[in-house]
């Protein structure tokens, strides 16, 4: 499970080509899904438009549960894109992984801490940006001294802790899922090197846990997409609502 990554250096920056590819694929899938589902918009929705509208209502529900719609309405598109991008990313690594040479090419982009931390930092950056924008620099700074002045150091720690947990929670769940899937796949296939009998035994032994774990991974991937979006909205609401 410790495959290498196809890393290249370009203009002083290191690029993991597998990540680049998977990010692009995930983004493309989300884009195509979104465009296809909204190609023929009708007042009476049918088929996939229904589904997308359900997702939108779901995200609306998330936003409404954390802040009022007047302030939260502008984050609807962010929430929609986040939940779909992370969900698609989580699902990408489930059906198979592709290893070329010693490099792992096909995986979930979210099974990489760099990617998840990028998303998390981006979200936390947005919360600070909207905090300053909607409450003013003074109101934003005041947020660090509430409810009492001595909370300031804790609040600072909280910011970093939130960022870290937001990114690493997603990464950990998906990465662990992929590792176990890889192990099970290894169990199913590697026995054939020693002989046909042990190969069959390994395959039979791997089928049931493989099925179970893939199902569970679908569940985990969905839940993690939801949690990431939910926490994004919670952090934003902490920064932008007036009563905090």
């Amino acid at each position, binding site marked *: 499970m410790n495959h290498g990554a196809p*890393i290249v250096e370009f203009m002083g920056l290191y690029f993991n080509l597998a990540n680049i590819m998977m990010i692009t694929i995930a983004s493309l899938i989300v884009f195509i899904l979104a*465009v296809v589902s909204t190609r023929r*918009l009708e*007042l009476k929705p049918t088929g996939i438009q229904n589904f997308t509208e359900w997702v939108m209502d779901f995200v609306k529900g998330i936003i409404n549960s954390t802040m009022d719609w007047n302030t939260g309405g502008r984050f609807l598109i962010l929430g*929609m*894109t986040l939940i779909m*991008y992370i969900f698609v990313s989580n699902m990408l690594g489930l059906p198979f992984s592709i290893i070329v040479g010693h490099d*792992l090419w096909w995986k979930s982009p979210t099974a990489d801490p*760099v990617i998840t931390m990028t998303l998390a930092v981006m979200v936390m950056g947005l919360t600070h940006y909207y905090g300053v924008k909607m409450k003013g620099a003074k109101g934003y700074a005041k947020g660090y001294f509430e409810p009492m002045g001595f909370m300031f150091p804790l609040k600072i720690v909280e910011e970093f802790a939130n960022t870290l947990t937001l990114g690493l929670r997603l990464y950990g769940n998906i990465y662990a899922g992929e590792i176990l899937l890889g192990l099970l796949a290894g169990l199913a296939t590697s026995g054939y090197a020693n002989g046909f009998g042990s190969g069959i035994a390994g395959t039979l032994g791997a089928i049931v846990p493989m099925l179970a774990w893939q199902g569970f991974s679908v569940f985990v991937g969905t839940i993690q997409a939801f949690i990431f979006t939910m926490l994004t909205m919670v952090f934003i609401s902490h920064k932008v609502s007036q009563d905090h």
Partner: protein
Amino acid sequence: MLTSGYVLGAAAEGGLHFNGGDIIFQLVMFIILLALVKKFAWGPLMGIMKEREQLIANEISAAEASRAEAGKLLEEQRELLKTSRTEAGQLIENAKKQGEAQREDIISAARAEAERLKESAKREIVQEKEKAVAALRDQVSSLSVLIASKVIEKELSEADQEKLINEYLQEAGEER
């Protein structure tokens, strides 16, 4: 290698490189994706959802308005019905009253007519009676003259006289 791989994740594999390129790429891709889906998917979707909301709100208000109008019309019709009903009652009442009056009129007129007829009949009867009495008187006087002349004509016995008188009286009665 194994430990470092777990501790530092994929970012650190293959030498301890920090994958700044991935970060930038992810960020840029996400922002591009955000802009694209906003323009091509979520924007129109939100538009149509808002439109639907508007439509439903319009429909509801239209339905409310038409319901209010229907209520108003119903009230009007009810009012109209009530007035026409009272009018009809009044008409019937008037007709009844008029009929009553007419009946009274007719009855009183008939009564008066009957009274008048009775009166004239009575008068006629009296007249006739007087006429008859006068005629009788005339007859009686002429008879008595006749009787007297007869008596004078012949001397009669008392029995004859009686017989004679009776005879004449009978005669007079027959003439009547």
